[in-house]
């Protein structure tokens, strides 16, 4: 029987990484300040001491070299896991990911099993460059996989599975969940399949499709809606954006006939557009109302608290959208 322990989201990622490194000598870490300093968020604290300089590499400030060298090491049979200090900086490795890592297997059949860890998301005045959720850009790139865990258990299970996956995986870690969210995490080996959504909350009146930190915003709104007038909201946590669990989403849409898509990333061509378009295409006859999107607006992430609050999707925004759709 699997035992569990209560852990923060951050601890869960850290444990997943550490356990996988103990299990598999091919796994190594590379990134800026991940060794001596233990990472900007301390996810790899103590790793240098346990695994040594060869497996925990403090790299130069070189996102292109970090990702590119992971690709090379992976082609030689290693299982590299790199960290972008903030997910925002992945823009500096865009070409290596989209051009090299994502396409190498299709082109010449050689797998590139790398993991890129990406502390992401806003909520603490990080400003335009320490708050973004860049998964939307990469969702458009065939050949990459993308995980966005919401719970500590999934954070552990998905980082482990990401390492084992034979493809490049972008692993988004929402910074606002790191120390704020605690949950039961299975002890010992625990892997969560990429591409399987989690039914976060069952409901019958409408569905919210979301992932990452917004799962909690959805949950708050759902609770308020229920308390207020008994509206029963279902929440589907995608867990991974690529591949994404179309079946779970379409089933929920068929069940409730009303769907809200929610993400913290910006609106236009965000992944929510793909979800909404797919539902509109494949569940057209199931729908009793339009698929509504609740997202950040099409702006950079502003710094000042009143602006950032207006930018980030809030519980009230979701609640208002629930009302709008419920009464449709």
């Amino acid at each position: 029987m699997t035992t569990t322990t209560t852990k923060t989201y951050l601890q869960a990622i850290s444990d997943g990484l550490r356990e996988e490194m103990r299990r598999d000598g091919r796994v190594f870490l590379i990134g800026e300040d991940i060794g001596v300093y233990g990472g900007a968020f301390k996810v790899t604290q103590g790793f240098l001491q346990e695994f040594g300089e060869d497996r925990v590499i403090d790299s130069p400030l070189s996102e292109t070299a970090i990702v590119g060298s992971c690709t090379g090491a992976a082609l030689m049979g290693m299982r590299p896991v790199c960290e972008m200090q903030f997910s925002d900086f992945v823009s500096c490795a865009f070409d290596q990911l989209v051009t090299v890592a994502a396409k190498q297997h299709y082109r010449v059949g050689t797998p590139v099993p790398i993991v890129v860890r990406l502390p992401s998301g806003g909520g603490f005045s990080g400003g335009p460059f320490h708050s973004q959720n860049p998964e939307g850009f990469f969702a458009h790139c065939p050949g990459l996989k993308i995980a966005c865990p919401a719970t500590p258990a999934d954070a552990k299970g998905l980082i482990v599975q990401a390492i084992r996956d034979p493809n490049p995986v972008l692993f988004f870690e929402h910074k606002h969940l790191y120390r704020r969210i605690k949950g039961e995490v299975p002890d010992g080996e625990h892997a969560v399949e990429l591409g399987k959504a989690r039914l976060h909350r069952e409901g019958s009146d409408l569905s919210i499709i979301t992932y990452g930190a917004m799962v909690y915003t959805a949950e708050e709104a759902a609770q308020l809606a229920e308390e207020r007038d008994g509206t029963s909201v279902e929440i589907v946590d995608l867990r991974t954006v690529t591949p994404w669990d179309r079946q779970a989403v379409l089933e929920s849409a068929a069940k409730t006939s009303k769907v809200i898509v929610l993400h913290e990333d910006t609106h236009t061509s965000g992944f929510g557009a793909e979800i909404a378009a797919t539902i509109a295409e494949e569940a057209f006859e199931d729908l009793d109302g339009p698929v509504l999107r609740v997202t950040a607006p099409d702006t950079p992430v502003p710094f000042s608290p009143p602006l950032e609050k207006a930018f980030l999707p809030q519980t009230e925004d979701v609640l208002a959208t629930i009302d709008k759709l419920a009464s449709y």
Partner: protein
Amino acid sequence: MAVAREAAPVESAEEVREADLDREDLIQIYRNMLITRGIEERGHILYRQGKIPGSFYTGRGNEGAAVGVATAMRVDDVGAPIQRDMGVHVTRGTEPWRIFAQYMGRADGLSAGKDGNVHMADLRLGLIAMVSHLPAMLPVATGCALAFKLRREHRVAVGWCGDGAAARGDAHEAMNLAGVHHLPIVFIIDNNQYAYSTPNRLEYGVDHLADRAEAYGFEGVVVDGTDVLTVYREAHRAIEKARDGGGPTLLELVTLRMEGHAVHDDAFYVPRELLEAYGRKDPIERYRRWLKEQSILDEVAEDAMSADVKKLLNDAARRAEESASPEPEQTLQGVYAEPEELDTPHHR
């Protein structure tokens, strides 16, 4: 094998005059350094008081480097300073209260609350606001220099970069392009020996970053960045050389980051002895001693200046605290520019 020149320290007042500085300039340099440090010290207090959101960075130890370079720039030169270069903003005339407002995310901050901390600049003062992504502003500064060259203007661009950031491709592409086209640009590397927790030896495998200049076809100089006068002299030389068609120069200004990467970081990884050694080379204290030795500053003048700077910063902090936060509606404003905005002296 080091190939860059190592700058000899400025010794005499004679040398200083040769470098185009009069008594007033020398005092202004001191004042700018005091204001620079004052802004950051006060900012740090405000931060601990919870009045500044986000994170907070200081450039303690870099005041001489930043003020020295900025003093050597002419009014219509432009620069793209980075996270340790508060002294550049101060020297170019950015009003301290607007910097505090920037820190606090107020509507009167240089980015009107859209961005925070050192991600700011006033283009009317010839400064370009940095992005976080380092050193993405080096290609941009190179483009400024390209514009000057195309228009045959006698202006110079100055681009800053950290020792850590010099590892990124943007530094290479910018320096290479500047070298090929012999552009009027000076590259400054603020080498404070660390990139966050990463020491120089894990950032690059050569003796001096200034050695790289050679590989782009221009001169590299290693300068003691704690010595404002030497920094000034070398920056002045390089900037005027660029202005006269002599092409780029790379100046590596060696200092030590005297505080953590940001104020959450206690910098446990920096050896005590190194901190102590550089503590003794504090750029402000060093320069103060020199001013006194040269009888440029006496006790009276010094006290007056301290009082004055203190008042300036008190007023500035108060004014910033009293200033308004941006309205939430501003969130949606300004993503795109309107055609009228191109109707400036720059853009005509």
